[in-house]
């Protein structure tokens, strides 16, 4: 049976990738069955892991974690698995920004999922230099991202910006609602707004590979008929008076062919003055991130 699964995995992924995945599964078994661990070699068998994998389950859900920069994040269905592309632009943004404890900044992450984006910042930047608010419509995501904050040693106390450590607070909220800003847990104005909103259009959603469509939350992926619904919502959210600090950065991940349309939406946000707008490519050469900086009007 084991060899049959192995052969099927090779035919699905190619030899090199299949071998790597088997190696990671074996490593996972070794790590989780050591002395004092709950699992044993009998309850956690390579054969079972392989069966799930060959059946289309994402490797990350099987192993329960995904590395993201220096972080090792917990991942659990149906919350979206952080992607390499997101890791790449988040690291780039983290390097391009240098907050310090004497001038801490506030972040709003719209649709935080595992919490990957703000948690990366909170672990790279010096202590006391960032306070992040992360919202998500999914209760699963709120819980998972809070667990991830604790796992990464980031404080989850929601204080006013006087805390000496970096903080991350996640709560349920729907940013497509008009009364979004009435939520008292939000503390505008924000210096940095990040989002990787659901951006897959209807047609493409139906053609997604099963490991994405059957295992990850539709609510995390589907962006309406043209895939741009959530960018329009974000435009409305950020156009609200006092949402952004006078000098703020907006970073939005976009689908492979959406950069120019999203850039247009951002440029038309009422009441803010875009000083610069960049489109960053990902490692595969696709336009991946729209980064806008405002300056005082």
């Amino acid at each position, binding site marked *: 049976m084991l060899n049959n699964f192995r052969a099927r995995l090779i035919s699905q992924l190619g030899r090199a990738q299949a071998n790597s995945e088997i190696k990671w599964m074996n490593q996972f078994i070794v790590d989780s069955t050591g002395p004092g661990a709950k699992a044993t070699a009998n309850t956690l068998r390579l054969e079972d892991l392989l069966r799930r994998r060959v059946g289309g389950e994402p490797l990350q859900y099987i192993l329960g974690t995904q590395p993201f920069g220096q972080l090792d994040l917990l991942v659990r269905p149906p919350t979206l698995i952080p992607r390499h592309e997101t890791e790449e632009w988040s690291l780039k943004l983290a390097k391009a920004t240098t907050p310090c404890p004497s001038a801490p900044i506030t972040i709003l992450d719209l649709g935080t999922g595992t919490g990957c984006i703000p948690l990366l910042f909170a672990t790279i930047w010096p202590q006391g230099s960032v306070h992040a608010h992360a919202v998500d419509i999914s209760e699963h995501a709120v819980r998972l991202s809070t667990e991830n904050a604790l796992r990464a040693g980031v404080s989850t106390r929601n204080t006013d910006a006087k805390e000496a450590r970096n903080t991350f607070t996640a709560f349920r909220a729907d940013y497509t609602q008009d009364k979004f800003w009435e939520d008292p847990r939000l503390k505008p104005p924000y210096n940095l707004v990040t989002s990787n909103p659901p951006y897959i259009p209807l047609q493409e959603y139906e053609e997604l590979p099963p490991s*994405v469509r059957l295992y990850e939350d539709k609510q995390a992926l589907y962006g309406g008929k043209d895939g741009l619904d959530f960018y329009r919502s974000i435009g409305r959210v950020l156009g609200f008076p006092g949402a952004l600090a006078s000098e703020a950065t907006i970073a939005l991940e976009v689908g492979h062919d959406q950069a120019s349309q999203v850039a247009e939406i951002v440029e038309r946000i009422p009441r803010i003055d875009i000083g610069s707008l960049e489109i960053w490519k990902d490692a595969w050469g696709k336009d*991946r991130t729209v980064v806008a900086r405002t300056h005082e009007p």
Partner: protein
Amino acid sequence: MFSLGRRAHFAFRLVRHASLSSRESKYLTGTHTGPELVKMLETDNSKILKLVRRKVDERTALMAEAEQIAINGDPSSQEYRDKTRRASELLVFQDAWSSYESAKSNLLETHTLLSHPDPDMRDLATEEYPSLPPTLTSLLLTTFPSLLVPPSSSSQHNLAGALMDLKSGVGGQESSLFLSELLRMYTRFAGSKSVDEETGEVIKAKWGVTIVQQNDADAGGIKDAIVEIKGKGAYDLMRWESGVHRVQRVPATDSAGRVHTSTVAVIVLPMLEESDKVEDELFKMDDVKIEVMRARGAGGQHVNKTESAVRLTHTPTGITVSMQDERSQHQNRRRAFQVLRARLLDLKLSADIASRRATRRSLVKGADRSEKIRTYNWAQDRITDHRVPGLTVRGLEGVMEGDGRVGGGFGGLVGRVEEWGREVEVEECLGEMMEALDKEEGQGEVGK
């Protein structure tokens, strides 16, 4: 005059440099008197003495100049700082020279006391005397040369350790199996704790070991691997593993019981301290092409495959590095840059050595990586190192398994290679220095 502690110290040195004593033994055996010994030593080794003397004189001159600046000039100037820094670098020569001078007068004085009218004095001198010639000889023939020739070029760089790159060579599956055994030998040696035989104390692992990359062969064994050995001195020792390792044995798979010969090629690269800035004096970021493996279609939310493999190409040298062992692309990238940096530094060091060697007559054997450096013969239960004359050790398993004794197992073997290599290095460089000295003095005479 000499405390026991000091004597014990020199005795220890002589044991450690057992192979050097071939040169030293010429002076330590035979029946020459103290004054005869001093005369012999100083005539035979006048050039070493001259070279050390020059360093001492250079230091004295620097100190005088620095003092002049301190009195008449600006002690906060760069010139002053340069002179005092250089002078303090040369202090070791001053110290060694003083030790040598005092050992010499000690020997000569004690020699005269051997025929002192007072029997008590004579007894004291007789007791003291035997330790003195070895001290003097070792200072002149071991301490001076090692000061004149500082250890390998690598020590000029701030090395964090070594990256060992192992590739299977001829012999197919056997070669892959042997590679996994070599890898195990290295990781056990560098990463496992050992026990001091005399004190019974547990000695903590020598270095940190991480397998950075490993490609298993389908039929068992390992096709290639990169292992990181992190820690001070790791490169200076492990670099002696560079070269082709040959194994001779009957593979389990050969039913006819024939002996096969297979090889594994090892390259040991110097690893720099990891720095935050990716770019440094070794390369320009513009010269590095970063590729991710395979087309990913739309990418982003559309795909959740773990495609973390990364390939770097350094265009000026054509060096490529692929890394796919980690699930994180970020980690693979970091690792790939680490390996690239090590390859480039290695290239630089080899170029430095080659340019120095162009003027040299002899070569350190085995510096050429395509050369066979060692044979592991199972039937005869021996390992022979082809660089060091007469170096064959019995008990192959003990070496490969690492037998936990200090100075035993693989550590003992590579230690002997290192000692030999260091000696060759010292001798070669010393030879060059002496030649230069001759030329200079020759010119001086012509000039007169």
